[in-house]
């Protein structure tokens, strides 16, 4: 077959078609390439830059919390920490074994670290230990050069240099939980009420898809707004989530740390870093960083020296103490003892340690000064007397006979003084704390009037603007309250209990302090303040009101008598070692257990003979100096027995210390001109 040994024309013409087709295809490819590289180049170059540069959140350092004179109560402390990068470490076990020569690491802990490292991207840090001692840090820093993948660095940690002293006031910080993140997100969103409602609907509401479509067709914008809101929520939430994943980030859980959280937190910045597709940082780009705004400091009105002295004075006793500057309302000491150490909470407290705190019968977690409610006992007698004088049911000079008992109907009430006070007028009744006198005048005054005056003295209300979390209101009982809460009508006998500050009536040590300050101010209400510099919270309007100056003057004279005149129940507590000026005050004893008639007859068991938890609480309220009141104090010694013996001397010593330290002198911070006063509607919510 030698027929075909030359190229056929068919082949050549077809090959030429192929040339043409190839040229066409090549032109197309080159055209597209040119379009991408020459025409779209600019836009795509920007996208490539976006790809490379990532912004890493740079957490702001948390603001400090200072005392009245600028001493730090909550500070940031630099602490060494050691972390490991799995990818670079090679054999984790070897490296961890090497580290454990310096830092104590149990085998379980090592295993947990290895497990944690395996569960995240290989180039991320896994924390091995924090809070390194100086020596550990120094040793490891030198060592780290030889240990592959080991990072020794300084982190920012919250510290509370005063430890337990300010546990309840400051609260503490902790790593943000999911609940915290939700709350922080909500806070950052700053929603209107309508938006809040929409958000709640998204979360809890039933979503009817078809109905939503119908609404959209009708031009109803609700669902669109709802979607936008849900998107905003998820954007902000993811950002908050990212920020709070940083090992240095904490959020306030209670106390000032919680209420002033956003003030203290500051604004996060961003560090520009070049990353690869897997997210690993290749290099930093400092020029593109966004500055971090550190959190602002908060200054309190409290004098940390006085606070420490007051806590020391309590010693092993448990209880609470509040010292208030009479003129400004500044809280100078806010003590609840025993307390916990907030430093233990910063890195998470172990369940065992937490259980120990929670099961402690002395309730160290409980803020007794603000959350604790106690019957005010005889410290309430100024309120009853004021109510009686205001109602005009008794004159200051009228004498009421006390023979140790008071009979109403078939029941008998006892005076604390079994043999009786004899005939006493108002002044003597206050001075000697005669129960019989107060049974009589409270019966005459009536429950409603007493409740009214109690509220005007600031009972039954809490102060939410102080920067504290929690806050008990206590109970100012009246017939309506009893009907609502017990479903029973008011008994006249209960009015008599009211008269000596017992029964359903309860109050907080802070309320007792503001009541005392109001007495010391000649009846003008005292608004406590605790934040010197910090967010301005609006003050809830309460029912407190100015009381009759003349009546209050009589109360002041009575309180002076208590500590300074013959027959006074707290004669030992009046002398502050100042010479002339003394402390005026009132003792109180709050029953913890009910004393039966049988016991009364057979003689009341002495407190000292009772189990501690059944003993009476001892109370004392007072102000000083008596002739020019500057400071008001309330003290409660739990299960202390009698007010005059247990609480009075404590109050006296703390008051003397406050005067000696001159705690109420001008603070180191500038008092804000527009400080909120009663009824102001402030704006900044922390």
């Amino acid at each position: 077959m030698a027929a075909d040994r030359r190229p056929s024309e068919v082949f050549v013409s077809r090959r030429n078609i192929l040339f043409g087709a190839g040229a066409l295809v090549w032109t197309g490819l080159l055209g597209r390439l040119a379009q991408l590289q020459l025409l779209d180049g600019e836009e795509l170059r920007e996208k490539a830059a976006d790809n490379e540069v990532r912004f890493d959140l740079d957490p702001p350092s948390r603001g400090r919390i200072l005392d009245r004179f600028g001493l730090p109560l909550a500070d940031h402390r630099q602490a060494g920490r050691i972390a490991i990068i799995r990818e670079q470490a090679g054999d984790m076990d070897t490296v961890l074994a090497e580290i454990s020569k310096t830092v104590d690491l149990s085998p379980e802990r090592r295993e947990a670290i290895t497990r944690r490292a395996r569960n995240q991207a290989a180039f991320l840090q896994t924390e091995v230990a924090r809070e390194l001692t100086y020596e550990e840090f120094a040793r490891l820093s030198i060592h780290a050069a030889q240990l592959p993948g080991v990072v020794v660095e300084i982190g920012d940690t919250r510290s509370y240099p005063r430890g337990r002293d300010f546990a309840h006031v400051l609260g503490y910080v902790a790593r943000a939980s999911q609940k915290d993140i939700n709350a922080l997100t909500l806070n950052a969103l700053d929603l209107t009420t309508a938006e809040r409602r929409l958000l709640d609907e998204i979360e809890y509401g039933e979503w009817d898809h078809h109905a939503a479509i119908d609404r959209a067709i009708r031009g109803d914008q609700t669902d669109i707004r709802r979607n936008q809101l849900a998107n905003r929520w998820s954007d902000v939430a993811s950002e908050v989530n990212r920020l709070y994943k940083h090992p240095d980030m904490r959020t306030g859980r209670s106390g000032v740390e919680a209420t002033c959280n956003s003030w203290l937190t500051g604004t996060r910045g961003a560090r520009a870093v070049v990353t690869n597709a897997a997210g690993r940082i290749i290099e930093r780009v400092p020029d593109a960083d966004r500055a971090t705004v550190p959190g602002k400091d908060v200054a309190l009105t409290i004098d940390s020296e006085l606070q420490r002295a007051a806590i020391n004075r309590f010693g092993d006793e448990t209880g609470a103490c509040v010292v208030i500057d009479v003129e400004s309302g500044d809280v100078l000491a806010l003590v609840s003892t025993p307390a916990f150490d907030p430093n233990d909470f910063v890195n998470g407290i172990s369940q065992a340690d937490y259980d120990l705190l929670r099961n402690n019968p002395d309730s160290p977690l409980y803020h007794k000064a603000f959350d604790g409610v106690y019957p005010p006992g005889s410290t309430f007698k100024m309120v009853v007397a004021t109510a009686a004088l205001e109602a005009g049911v008794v004159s200051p000079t009228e004498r009421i006979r006390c023979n140790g008992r008071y009979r109403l109907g078939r029941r008998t009430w006892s005076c604390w003084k079994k043999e009786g006070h004899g005939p006493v007028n108002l002044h003597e009744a206050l001075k000697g704390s005669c129960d019989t006198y107060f049974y009589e005048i409270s019966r005459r005054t009536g429950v409603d009037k007493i409740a009214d005056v109690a509220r005007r003295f600031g009972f039954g209300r809490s102060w939410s603007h102080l920067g504290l979390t929690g806050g008990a209101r206590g109970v100012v009982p009246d017939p309506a309250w009893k009907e609502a809460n017990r479903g029973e009508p008011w008994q006249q006998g209960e009015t008599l209990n009211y008269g000596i500050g017992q029964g359903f009536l309860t109050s907080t040590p802070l309320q007792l302090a503001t009541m005392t300050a109001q007495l010391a101010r000649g009846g003008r209400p005292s608004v406590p303040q605790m934040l010197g510099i910090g967010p301005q919270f609006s003050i809830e309007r309460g029912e407190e009101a100015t009381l009759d100056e003349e009546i209050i003057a009589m109360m002041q004279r009575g309180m002076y008598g208590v500590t300074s005149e013959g027959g006074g129940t707290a004669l030992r507590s009046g002398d502050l070692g100042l010479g002339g000026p003394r402390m005026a005050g009132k003792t109180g004893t709050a029953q913890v257990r009910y004393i039966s008639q049988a016991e009364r007859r057979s003689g009341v068991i002495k407190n000292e003979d009772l189990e501690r938890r059944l003993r009476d609480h001892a109370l004392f309220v007072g102000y000083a100096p008596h002739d020019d009141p500057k400071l008001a104090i309330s003290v409660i010694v739990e299960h202390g027995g009698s007010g005059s013996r247990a609480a009075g001397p404590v109050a006296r010593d703390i008051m003397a210390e406050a005067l000696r330290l001159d705690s109420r002198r001008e603070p180191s911070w500038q008092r804000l001109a527009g400080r909120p006063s009663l009824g102001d509607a402030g704006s900044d919510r922390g």
Partner: protein
Amino acid sequence: MTYIHDAERQSGRRYANTQASMSFMGSSGLGGLSWGLVALLTMTALIGTAMLYSTTQAGSGAEADLWQRHLTRFGIGLVAMISLALVPLPIWFRLSYIVYFGALVLLVAVEFAGSVRGGAQRWLEIGPIAIQPSEPMKVALTLALARYYHSALAKVPTDAVRHHLVAAMIILVPAALIFMQPDFGTTLALVASGGVIVFLSGLRKEIIGAFALLGIVSVPLIYTFVLADYQKERVDTFITQLSGGDESQSLSEGYQIEQARIAIGSGGLTGKGYMQGTQTKLEYIPEQHTDFILTVIAEELGFVGAAGLMLIWAAILVWCLLIAGRCSERFGRFAAAGVAATLGFYIVFNVGMVIGLLPVVGVPMPLVSYGGTAMMTIMVAFGLILSADLHRDSRMPEGGLL
């Protein structure tokens, strides 16, 4: 030099060989080799090596010695290519069917005994070496078709349809086997380059038109009934991309394509500089040392680099087709043109995929992408072309299957 044809059956016209004036014709020793073509191939492989070196500089990217292995393979391939070029074309002719059936056996073996890598059963492990039988099939198919048409066209008029039915069988059997692996890209390249040989053989234009129509009609049918889910996804992604779709896809094929587009586009006219590509260095581009190596060239060397590579390939392919035209016998013509078509389709598929004009089919850029079997196939293919050129006047043996 002019050939005087004998009674050419269809036209009877004279044909002037346009390549008649090539100066080194006639020699069948090393001196007669198309050294210019060898130089172009070497240049391409060196570009590939340089780009592979660049990709190994990415953070934790490819193994550091990729470029060395690429270069070594090319060196070995070069020696093999030149040796094969010296093999007389009649020997290629005699071996054509054996090679074809051998490759077919391997493909069947893969179906039963192949190992699965990356979800596809493409590899056959024989002792320490793993090969992809679909690679040798590319050359084998060309050889078989060239031999078939060489003999068939000598007997019957070119426009007789029945030759082409046999040719279609030769193409479709291996294509079907490769499709089942599954390897859509290779299947497509195989069918397309086989189709080119059929086209060159002189199949009537009306029939070509009919097939083209059939092809267009069958696209939706193939999509619906033939393609696997992941293949459909690639097509979907491609269509989404073409219609300027969603740029936020980040985990799917769309991500790869979008990142490739960003890498290419950000290169601009002259690129970010050798080894300075951010997209590729930061590993935003998967498969950058294999199928997507063009992104590295485009990003680092810009339009100049990418278009330059395209032009080098255009020159190589034109050269191959000119060699085809110079062959005195059909076997050489079809073999050279078939190999050129195969390479051409590879380049078109690869570039089209990388710049987002075609779906992601997973086809490497010849000589530039990293990959051993593909490199060997390409070198053997060029060995064939060079042999066809060197032995362009050899007479093929007549008759017999072997």
